[in-house]
């Protein structure tokens, strides 16, 4: 078990902790935060639509990350797996991650266009 735990680090580095960061619960929560801070209904609806698209991108990546995790597990357990096998997997998931990043960054200006400068930081305030 401890041995396996050591390799979870690699898995974590590989996927970027994607299940945590892209978790549905988390994404839904962030929508709630923006709903709270955006004062106008129309802007809020638009922002929610954009966030939905971002969430969809994130979920798509999550699925890919889960597949990568399974592949990594197989590679780790396989005594014959080569460095090349691992590097190929790392490259694949990185490429997919970068595509997701690009999509989300593309949507960011639209999201901000529906959120006022003074509303934006409120979404990040700590809750007591």
């Amino acid at each position, binding site marked *: *078990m*401890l*041995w*396996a*735990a*050591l*390799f*979870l*680090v*690699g*898995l*974590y*580095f*590989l*996927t*970027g*902790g*994607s*299940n*945590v*960061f*892209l*978790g549905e619960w*988390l*994404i839904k*929560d*962030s929508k709630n*935060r923006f709903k709270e801070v955006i004062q106008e209904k129309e802007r809020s609806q638009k922002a929610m639509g954009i*966030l939905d698209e*971002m*969430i969809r*991108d*994130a979920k798509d*990546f999550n699925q890919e*990350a*889960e597949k990568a*995790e399974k592949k990594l*597990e197989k590679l*780790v*357990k396989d*005594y014959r797996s080569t*460095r090349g096998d*691992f*590097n190929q997997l*790392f490259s694949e998931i990185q490429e997919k*991650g970068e595509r*997701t*990043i690009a999509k*989300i*960054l593309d949507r*960011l200006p639209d999201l*901000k266009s529906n959120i006022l*400068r003074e509303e*934006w*930081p409120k*979404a*990040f*305030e*700590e*809750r007591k």
Partner: protein
Amino acid sequence: MKATAVKITGKIMSRTTLFIFLLGMVFFLTACASKTKVQEGDPATLRAKWTKEVSKVIKDPERAEKLITLGVRYEEKSRELFSELKNLAREFQVINRNYDSTRGDYERALAKFKEKKNEALRQYLDALIAMREQVTPEEWKALLG
């Protein structure tokens, strides 16, 4: 063995970092206030468990010692990298909070993060292969069981 082994802490759920997770996750924000099993407990306890585990499977003391040393070294390096990645995660937090952050700001931070992540993956692979070289296929299977 899934990424769910990465434990969600109270910190992760903080509102400040919320948006980081929406955007930052795709930047491979691996170390953002999260905690893996490897980071659990103090290093001394972890090493003691590791030594016990290896000694149980590897009967050759010399090879067992090598494997233990490699594991400990890797664990130390991993801790350092997690620490560095956490610092980079904080940079993302600042970028996310700033309404005027540009795409370039994100991309520069991402490039730094990617570099560090790739270093982590290289170290991971080096350690895995070095450790595997010390064991037989049967021992490997037993250790991963």
